[in-house]
């Protein structure tokens, strides 16, 4: 089967003589990959490496037959998009937050915020439309996590690197979000999902999901 995203022997050492991690894995179009390992094993670090926010000590990533170094980092991060566990809300309303990526040079050239799509997505993840005018910095953790997810989905990434997307959500809302993500994977060609999740049953939402286990040596600080 076609492999469109592959990371090979990614190694990262946290400090000279410090602990390090190894990981290899691949992703097929329309599929999800679970990143597993005990707490502190470096799961978030792997996602951050794949988003090119951290340079690994060694290893390489191939995306659609191209080495990652051949793709400009800004374009890479916009397509291979990382969403951290702790949602980041910027000053202003939820609407301002959803608009923000399109005010940047790169996405601004592609278009502007599709408000109808934004409303649809908010509804899909269980947020009322009135929340568009709420102050983003006063949202609860669960609301902010969903707004951050909607904001990321609106920029239409090809691969989502999600770090515990349901950590701040109750079981019902978590299910809703995961079901939406499972649909999102199928909605368009060449989409993929890398998921860090401690909740085993979260993985049942993604048929054919495979797992990559992080090998780590030593413990971090």
């Amino acid at each position: 089967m076609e492999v469109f995203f592959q990371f090979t022997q990614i190694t990262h050492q946290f400090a000279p003589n410090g602990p390090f991690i190894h990981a290899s894995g691949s992703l097929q179009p329309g599929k999800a990959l679970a990143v597993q390992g005990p707490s502190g094993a470096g799961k978030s670090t792997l996602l951050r490496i794949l988003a090119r926010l951290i340079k690994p000590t060694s290893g390489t990533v191939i995306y659609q037959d191209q080495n990652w170094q051949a793709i400009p980092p800004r374009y890479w991060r916009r397509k291979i998009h990382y969403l951290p566990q702790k949602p980041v809300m910027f000053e202003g309303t939820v609407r301002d937050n959803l608009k923000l990526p399109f005010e940047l040079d790169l996405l601004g050239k592609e278009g502007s915020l599709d408000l109808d799509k934004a409303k649809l997505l908010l509804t899909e993840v269980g947020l009322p439309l009135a929340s568009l005018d709420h102050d983003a910095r006063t949202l609860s953790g669960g609301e902010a996590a969903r707004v951050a997810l909607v904001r990321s989905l609106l920029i239409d990434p090809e691969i989502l690197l999600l770090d515990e997307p349901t950590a701040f959500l109750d079981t019902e809302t978590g299910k809703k979000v995961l079901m939406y993500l499972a649909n999102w994977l199928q909605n368009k060609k060449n989409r993929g999902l890398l998921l860090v999740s401690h909740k085993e049953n979260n993985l049942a939402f993604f048929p054919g999901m495979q797992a990559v286990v992080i090998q780590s040596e030593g413990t971090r600080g």
Partner: protein
Amino acid sequence: MMNYGIIPISHLQLAMSIILVLMAGLVSAFLKLGLLKSLIWGTIRAFIQLSLIGYLLAYIFQINHFILILLIMLLMCYIAAREATRRVNVPTQEPLLVSFLSLTASSLLVSVIVVTLIITPRPWYSAQIWIPIFGMILGNSMNGISLALDRMYNEVRSHTAEIEALLCFGASPWEAVKNSVRKALRAGMTPTINSLMVVGLVTLPGMMTGQILAGADPREAVRYQFVVMVMITASAALGCLLLIGISYRKMFTEDLALTEDMRQSHN
């Protein structure tokens, strides 16, 4: 307007200033502040440093050679840059070089404008004009740059999550840090702008006071002071802008991600 000219201070009169040191010493001794040693050492140092600089300046003014003036100004920039970056703890950022370049460029540009367009001495390279003007510009730019640099690194370090979120949307390094940079520039420029507001009301600046003591007409002294104030504002603004312009990119790796020492809070 009466003009008495400068009233010289004789050796004996200078020695009388020991009374002032004694007063400060008594306060320290009486309240057991433990400052006596520092006070004595400070007084001796101040006397020796100022005497030396007095003789040195007299010598430089006498020679008045263009190259010598330039060398002294560069040395002043180096010392100011070292002072401005002394507290900045970012090992990979080379703040000394960046500060030196921005201090030199901004102070030179502003002093060229002030000396050649406003004061217009003859010859144009008069050491008596250049060195004091340059010193005043440098001292204030140094403070501005130090504040701006410190603020920029602190802002970026405390907003790494926001900056990385922007980077993940495909933001350029500039787009990702521009809010932090704006705050840093404001921090660097605010003290000089504030001093524009209160000058003459709360304080009589040292330069103006010096001219008046030296017998100058106060109306003439305030003209000089006004020029000094605006040149300080301009050089602080230019210095901070150059500094940030050169150094913000150094907070990012070749992959346009924050460098490790900028995202310490994550690991």
